[in-house]
Every structure is written in C-alpha cells, then in structure tokens.
C-alpha cells in the first residue's frame, strides 16, 4: 500500500461518506456543508491525479462560489422549510433500487473495459501541465472556441440569474 493509495482511499471514503450524508441529512444546511466536504475530497483526488490547477480551481469555484450560493439559497428559502416533514419522496426505495442498478451497470461496464486496471504513466517533470492547459485553452486550433462559448454561456447565465431573481422588484 503506497502513500498515494492510502491518501486515495481516505479521500474516497471522505467523498462517499459526505455524498451519502448530502442526500440523506434532514437539515438542508448540513446537506450543503456535507457537499462542501465532498467537493474538498474531490479536490484532493485532483491533487492525486497531479491536476494541481484543477484542484485549486475546484476549491475556488465549487467551494468558494457554488457552495456559498447554495447556502445563500437555503437561507433565503428557510422561512417555509422548517426542515420538518419528510425530506424524501415516497418513491425513494424505487430511486435507491434504480441507483443501485445503474451503479451495477456502470461498474460492470468499467470492469469490462479493456486494460482498465493499468496504472498511470509518469509525467516527465519538465512538462508544465498548467502552461500546457493554458496553451490548449487559448490556441485557436485547440480549444479556443469552447473557451469563448463557455464565457458567453457564463455571461448569459449571469444576466439570466440576475434578471430572474430580481424580477419581483418591478411588480
């Protein structure tokens, strides 16, 4: 068991545990916070996968922005949801069964993949993954277009969200 395997297992446990807590806790704020924990676990995984930039971005974007947004949203709609009453739908067993079925299917597919158990190949030190990523994002023949489209998407989402949320003021 090498160090990284240990770290992997720890973070996997962290992720799965907090994910399960997210979908099962009664109080929504706890769910949000558990989500933060899960995201933190994922960030660690990225670190393990030597995608440092992504790990940090995961933390900044997910935890820094999205989690806080969730918490804000929960706060804003707290008055009604006294965290009382059943949190899950009556048909949750069917959902669980279906989840398991999908899981089984996916796992089966994964195991069925050829050469799935191979290990990662060593990245040569002098390769600067962050620089390469930067290059990929902006060089036209690589992924400049999706990058631009994503920016436009964000702008649209920004305007849309502002407009929808503030809609009530005008009436």
């Amino acid at each position, binding site marked *: 068991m090498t160090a*990284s395997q240990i770290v*992997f297992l720890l973070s*996997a446990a962290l992720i*799965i545990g907090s994910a*399960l807590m*997210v*979908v099962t806790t009664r109080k*929504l704020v706890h769910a949000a916070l558990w989500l933060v924990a*899960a*995201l933190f676990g*994922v960030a660690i*995984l990225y670190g393990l*996968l030597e*995608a440092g*930039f*992504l790990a940090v971005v995961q933390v900044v974007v997910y935890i820094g922005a999205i989690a806080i*947004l*969730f918490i804000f*949203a929960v706060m804003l*709609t707290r008055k009604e*949801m006294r965290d009382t009453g*059943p*949190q*899950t*739908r009556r048909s*949750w067993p069917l*959902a*669980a069964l*279906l*989840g398991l079925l*999908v*899981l089984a299917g996916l*796992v089966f597919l*994964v*195991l069925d993949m050829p050469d799935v*158990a*191979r*290990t*990662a190949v060593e*990245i040569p030190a002098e*390769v600067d*993954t962050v620089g*390469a*990523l930067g*290059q*990929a*994002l902006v060089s036209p023949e690589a*992924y400049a277009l*999706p*990058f631009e489209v*994503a920016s436009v*998407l*964000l702008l649209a*989402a*920004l305007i849309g*969200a502002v407009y*929808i*949320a503030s*809609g*009530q003021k005008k009436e």
Partner: protein
Amino acid sequence: MNIPLSWYLILAASLFCIGLYGVLSRRNAIAILLGVELMLNAVNINLVAFWRYLDPAQMGGQVFAIIVFAVAAAEVAVGLALIISVYRSRKSVVADDIDLMKW
C-alpha cells in the same frame, strides 16, 4: 503512483449513483440541485482520471473539466435564481408542487 484507473472509475460511478439517488428522492428543489452537483463532480473525476491515465499530453480532458466547471456554475446560478423566484411566487420549494407544465 500505482493506483489503477478502475478505482477512480468505480469511485466516480458510485458518486454518480449517490447523486442520482439524491436527485430522484429529495423533495426539496435545492436538494435536487445538490444531487446534480454531485453527479457533475463524478463526471469531472472521470474526465481528469482519463486525462491522467490515457494521455496526459492531450489537454482535452482537463479543458473539458474546466468547461464542466463553467457549465456547473452557470447551471447552479440560474437554477437557484429560478427556485428563488418560484419560491417567491408560489411560497413553496417542493419539486412536486411545481407541476404547472402538465398537459
């Protein structure tokens, strides 16, 4: 560095299914969004894992992950805005109540 790729994939699959369960079973709209977030993260894990294990030189995996980030952020922003405006007009966040779009 001897973590086999299958571990990551299985982990992502399980995270994905937990998220799926969360989406299908939770009554609160925001909880559903939480589920969606989990699923998105599962996908991201897969992407980066594939990047790392199949061909680190090709930055496709990472770029795609970043784009998923962007989309996730946009989706959450708009989703929550919608939920809040629905909450303001219909005073309820339960997913089942928002069922105007019937035939």
